[in-house]
């Protein structure tokens, strides 16, 4: 059902995502470059606090903390940006949903595409950063990066679809998500390394839904390696569970939410 709707309106989705992206910073001198200013600034702050002040080191010997951080932080920013923006997609497009017969899921998909473009720009940036500053040359596994990014955002899309539906009916959901997402990033080893936890905890940490997806991206970039089978199984599990949950909730609520827009 959802897939059929998305396929039917694929062109509208792509074009909207592109123009959203293109015109988000329209009129500013730096234009599209603002997209990378924010992640670079965040990187700078974390490097100062964790590496310089707290003495955090990357897991591998001699690896730079900054390079470790960027590989995880950038995908997280794309993921959390999708949930933040996409969660509000129905409310933001209420004026359209009130009068145009477009399936609402189209607007969440638009956010998915916009986030994907954003992530691809981050990857592009990494293609410069890693060889130049870290001496890490892109390996064969890097070819898998777009797929890994798409999967990470697919998980985000499912969560976003649930939130977007709920947010129309419960105003508190918006606030909840806004605050929760800040806490969420600290519950997984993105800014810090997994080995700060006791070994017995480490497996459970991996169950945090987006973590293994982010770790997959990081593994490709830093080690030119794809995740082991167990990781794949857990990721697949999350995609199935959240996918079903999103489908059920969307199916139940989408006829009703337009009544309240």
């Amino acid at each position, binding site marked *: 059902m959802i897939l059929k709707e998305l396929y*039917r309106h694929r062109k509208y989705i792509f074009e909207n995502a592109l123009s959203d992206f293109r015109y988000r910073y329209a009129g500013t001198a730096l234009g599209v470059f603002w997209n990378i200013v924010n992640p670079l600034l965040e990187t700078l702050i974390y490097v100062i606090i964790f590496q310089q002040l707290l003495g955090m080191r990357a897991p591998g010997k001699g690896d730079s903390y900054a390079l470790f951080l960027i590989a995880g932080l950038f995908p997280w920013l794309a993921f959390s940006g999708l949930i933040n923006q996409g969660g509000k997609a129905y409310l933001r497009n209420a004026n*359209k949903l009130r*009068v*145009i017969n477009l399936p609402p899921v189209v607007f969440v998909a638009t956010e998915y595409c916009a986030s994907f473009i954003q992530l691809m720009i981050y990857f592009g940036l990494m293609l410069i950063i890693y060889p130049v500053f870290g001496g890490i040359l892109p390996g064969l596994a890097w070819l898998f990066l777009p797929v890994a990014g798409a999967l990470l955002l697919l998980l985000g899309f499912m969560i976003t679809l649930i939130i977007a539906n709920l947010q129309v009916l419960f105003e508190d959901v918006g606030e909840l998500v806004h605050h929760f997402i800040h806490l969420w990033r600290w519950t997984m080893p993105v800014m810090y390394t997994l080995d700060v936890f006791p070994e017995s905890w480490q497996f459970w940490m991996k169950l945090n839904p987006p973590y293994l997806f982010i770790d997959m991206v990081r593994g490709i970039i830093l080690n030119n390696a794809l995740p082991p089978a167990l990781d794949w199984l857990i990721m697949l599990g999350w995609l199935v569970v959240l996918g079903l949950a999103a489908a059920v909730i969307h199916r139940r609520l989408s006829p009703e939410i337009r*009544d309240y827009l």
Partner: protein
Amino acid sequence: MEKPVLRVNNLGKRFKLYHQSQDRLVEWLTLGAKRKHTDFWAVRNIQFELQRGDFLGILGHNGAGKSTLLKMLSGVLTPSEGSFEVNGRMLSLLELGTGTNESLTGRENTTNRAKIFGFSQQEVDDHISEIKEFSELGEFFEYPVSTYSSGMRARLNFSTFAFLDCDILVLDEVLAVGDIFFKQKCYQRMDELLKNDTTIILVTHSVQYVNSFCNKALVIDSGEQVYMGEKEEGVRMYGRLRHKQLRTLDTTTQKKPELADHKEKVQEKLADDNWQGKEMEWPPLEQFPEILPIRRRNLVLEQFLLQNEEGVMTTVINQGEMVTLYYTFRVVNEPVEGKIAAGVMIFDNLNRVVHGRDNYQANPHMHLPERLEPGSFVRFKQKVKMDIKEGMYIARLRALQVKEDEGLRETIFPSEQVMSFEVILPQKNALFTRFEGMADLAGSSVVQWKHGDDGDH
């Protein structure tokens, strides 16, 4: 008979109203065992069929459920009960400009919009030049919509819709904007569409449009289908709707027992047929709509009724028709000192007074009481010939006390809006218009002529 292009079966939309959003959560957690919402039927039991080439006008006051109905038909809202069948392709223009991407050009927006409605690139290419030409946007068609004026936006939107092939075109009051020349063009275009067997559904407040352009009318009042059928009867039915013209009695505010008690006493007095003054015919009590009494200073308006020439209560009046107004005041608290004078004032949509005349102005020598004590009633029957331009008007009622010895006219019931009405042209044919402009001034013309025989051409 041909298969109807649209068949609507018992269509209805219910909204669940919650006081707070938490209430919904409570319902969910108890799996619906605990009911926290109230149902509100915005529109219900709608049933009609349209054939190819029909032009349906949907009439109804604000909040009657017209838009909800259209939204269900265009797929924006999911019906709560009933169903409808469309045989063909339906396009709906519910609001101008939404879904328009400001940063894209007119051409790109037109293409996008067409794609949303499922048209292929080929179909868009076939029509894009017609759309451009009709919209009169010229080179602006290639500029971003953000540079457009509101009139230009309206033109772009309507053009997009009028030139894409469809079987049913749904329009919601969209022609309220735009300049007069473009409107004219739109109606011309709609005529062409109808000739090509396109079915059009138009929602409007203007009885005049329905009267001049539609062949079918659907009248909705408070979510109920009041009438569906030929437009003449539909227009008549719409005129008789009691709602919102007058301040109708609102049952929710009439719960206080003392008010109900008081109401009975007044009704008793009104029913009692013992009046002083000139003899006149007065409609029976049950013909008056129940209104919330309006009190200003020492007068309370207890009754108000406007009837057309056939003696039917209406808000739609043919141009030149003689209407009769009936209204009754009750005197409270202070007496009316001097002769009472009351009359209806007609205002146009720009709030200009078109006409007003009270009984004292009509005849200063009329027999009237010099004083009316509290508890007195006074009632008026006034005739007005509606020789005014077609359009929407508001009737206000005003009362004064005329102190002849002091030469004073004092307002004791400041002009209070009692109803809105529309004057329509009974004939569509331009040959039969009786005058141009705002008002019919009395007058006549005489003509003489001589035939020539110069033959120099």
